[in-house]
């Protein structure tokens, strides 16, 4: 017998309890501390900060713990917290030229002023599972410190080295540091979108999505071949300038990865050919995201460069409307919510259409039979 489904409230509360139980796992295993996540899963932490658009390592670690290691869930938790925070100041643009460098490499020059600084990287490791980590037998290696510190004003490959010869396009340099910058968390996105908005969207965008789009530009879905001019990773100071002070104060350091690509050149019979640029900037050490972002940034400059839009990465509406994983996961997963009212409408229509077809067929059959009966009579 049908009993209307009641008691959803109790079921939900119990589901939440079960979720908490599953998060904790086997109680014979020590509970993970957020400080352990913060220290030892630091790349998860920085991804959550980057796509959660909130630089707070402790909160990101908490979000990862609460989200049971599901990083999109953690990003969602960060976003929902971030949205409630008041804005008390806007920072000055950070100066990545003055970054305290931990890693800096260029793929366009074998050696260059400032040198190739490898820093912490997976790049040349052999991906062999290290079973000593599992056996808790880790003997942490301590890295040697270089004899001399890195160049304090590490030259930028694109601005200081390539641009010296005029080989790379000039970036329109905002003359005023205080010029307004678009913020898609405070204003609905309008198209066509300017580059500041596009870059913000990519910086928050899902790493996997931006990676796949960047990859697609390398496989012919946009013709903007790229070299990595420079990647730098390290910490920069964040400064704000309170109105009542009139000068900037340092409020702390953040870690950033910056990537500048040197792309396919442009020129004509009358104009000197020049390389073009793509730009990526992301919290923490995340070169995959920074490079992908630079590739997609360059691809989305198609309109500005007068290029034909032939791939999805060049289509700013397509990219920007689908890059946000919190939006995407919400909308994709919402189809598991009840839809029986709408489905009922479809059921009713399909049944009616089927009935009409059957009725028509039956009528046609009857007419055929009628014809068959009347034919012999007509022959008589």
């Amino acid at each position, binding site marked *: 017998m049908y009993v*209307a*489904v009641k008691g*959803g409230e109790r079921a939900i*509360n119990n589901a*939440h309890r079960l979720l908490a139980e599953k998060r904790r796992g086997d109680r014979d295993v020590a509970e993970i501390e957020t400080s352990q996540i913060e220290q030892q899963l630091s790349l998860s932490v920085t991804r959550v900060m980057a796509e959660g658009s909130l630089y707070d390592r402790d909160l990101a670690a908490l979000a990862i713990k609460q989200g049971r290691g599901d990083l999109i869930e953690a990003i969602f938790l960060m976003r929902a917290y971030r949205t409630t925070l008041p804005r008390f100041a806007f920072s000055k643009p950070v100066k990545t030229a003055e970054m305290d460098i931990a890693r800096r490499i260029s793929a366009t020059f074998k050696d260059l002023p400032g040198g190739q600084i490898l820093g912490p990287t997976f790049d040349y490791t052999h991906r062999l599972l290290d079973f000593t980590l599992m056996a808790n037998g880790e003997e942490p290696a301590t890295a040697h410190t270089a004899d001399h510190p890195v160049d304090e004003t590490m030259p930028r490959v694109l601005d200081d080295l390539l641009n010296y010869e005029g080989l790379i396009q000039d970036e329109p340099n905002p003359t005023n540091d205080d010029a307004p910058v678009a913020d898609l968390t405070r204003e609905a996105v309008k198209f066509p979108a300017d580059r500041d908005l596009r870059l913000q969207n990519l910086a928050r965008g899902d790493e996997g999505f931006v990676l796949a789009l960047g990859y697609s530009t390398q496989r012919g879905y946009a013709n903007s071949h790229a070299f990595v001019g420079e990647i730098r990773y390290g910490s920069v100071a964040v400064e704000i300038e309170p109105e009542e002070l009139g000068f900037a104060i340092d409020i702390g350091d953040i870690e950033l990865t910056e990537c500048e690509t040197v792309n396919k050149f442009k020129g004509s019979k009358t104009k000197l050919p020049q390389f073009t640029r793509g730009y990526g900037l992301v919290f923490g050490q995340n070169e995959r995201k920074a490079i992908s972002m630079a590739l997609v940034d360059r691809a989305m400059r198609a309109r500005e460069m007068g290029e034909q839009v032939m791939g999805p990465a060049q289509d700013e509406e397509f990219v920007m409307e689908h890059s946000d994983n919190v939006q995407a996961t919400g*909308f994709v997963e919402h189809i598991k*919510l*009840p839809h029986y*009212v709408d489905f009922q*409408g479809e059921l009713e229509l399909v049944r009616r259409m089927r009935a009409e077809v059957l009725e028509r067929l039956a009528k046609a059959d009857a007419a055929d039979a009628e014809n068959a009966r009347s034919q012999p009579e007509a022959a008589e």
Partner: protein
Amino acid sequence: MEQTVNNPLEASSAYNFAYLDEQTKRMIRRALLKAVAIPGYQVPFAGREMPMPYGWGTGGVQVTAAVIGPDDTLKVIDQGADDTTNAVSIRQFFAKTANVATTEKTAEASIIQTRHRIPEKELREDQILVYQVPIPEPLRFLEPRETETRKMHALEEYGLMHVKLYEDISRHGHIATTYAYPVMVDDRYVMDPSPTPKFDNPKMDMMAALQLFGAGREKRIYALPPYTKVKSLDFEDHPFEVQSWKDECGMCGATDSYLDEVILDDKGNRMFVCSDTDYCSERQDAGHRGPQHHDQPLGTSHSNGKAAE
């Protein structure tokens, strides 16, 4: 009521009344005023990230948060029902963050947030109906680009929509849209009524209550002020018509409400029951009975429901 486990909203009063900060509410109210001034026009607004996922009604929640006051009484329905999980969750959210009274009775609510239905009971001037909208753009599936669809609305260029409806008729013999059936608002804007079944479209026309629509992910708000003309698109020779059922509600015997189909077993037995739970229970309280009501032995004839009326 049982305690919700580990709910941070409960643990701290770090959140403003109805969750959103006052600056954000002001921004949403400005968008709402514009929407009311231009019925059916989609107003972009700076939708915020909410603590529930996109697709779960973040637009509706933001609109409700912007219009709700401490004296309001809130009703939340999903698929017409107060007891579906998402309706329960949103109702709890406002009960916690705004400490407002909640109700399941349509008549007692001052604000009704809904997903996919309009209550069967006629709404009054002192009520607000807030719709959760997934895709606010009625032309989206004809033209994916926002730049294009905004132009089409600006130029009142709705030919494409009529062509689509015409193609439905030539292909299926019917307009094959059963929900989110497009409407013309005040003879100007084509609007998506949100995925309510077309059964509900006529209720929107000249409704006494204020109707507000919030699309969180798409960051759009639109509105129908009270007593606005809302016409479902159709053709003279193929007039708009709503769904109808051969059956009545198995519980209350209603023949005028939207019915959900409930599968009873694996032998093809099914019954129909009102999607609007409040409407159905009110009728049952008033003594109306359908053929499958638990007071009644299964399989009694339909006339039982009629006899109770």
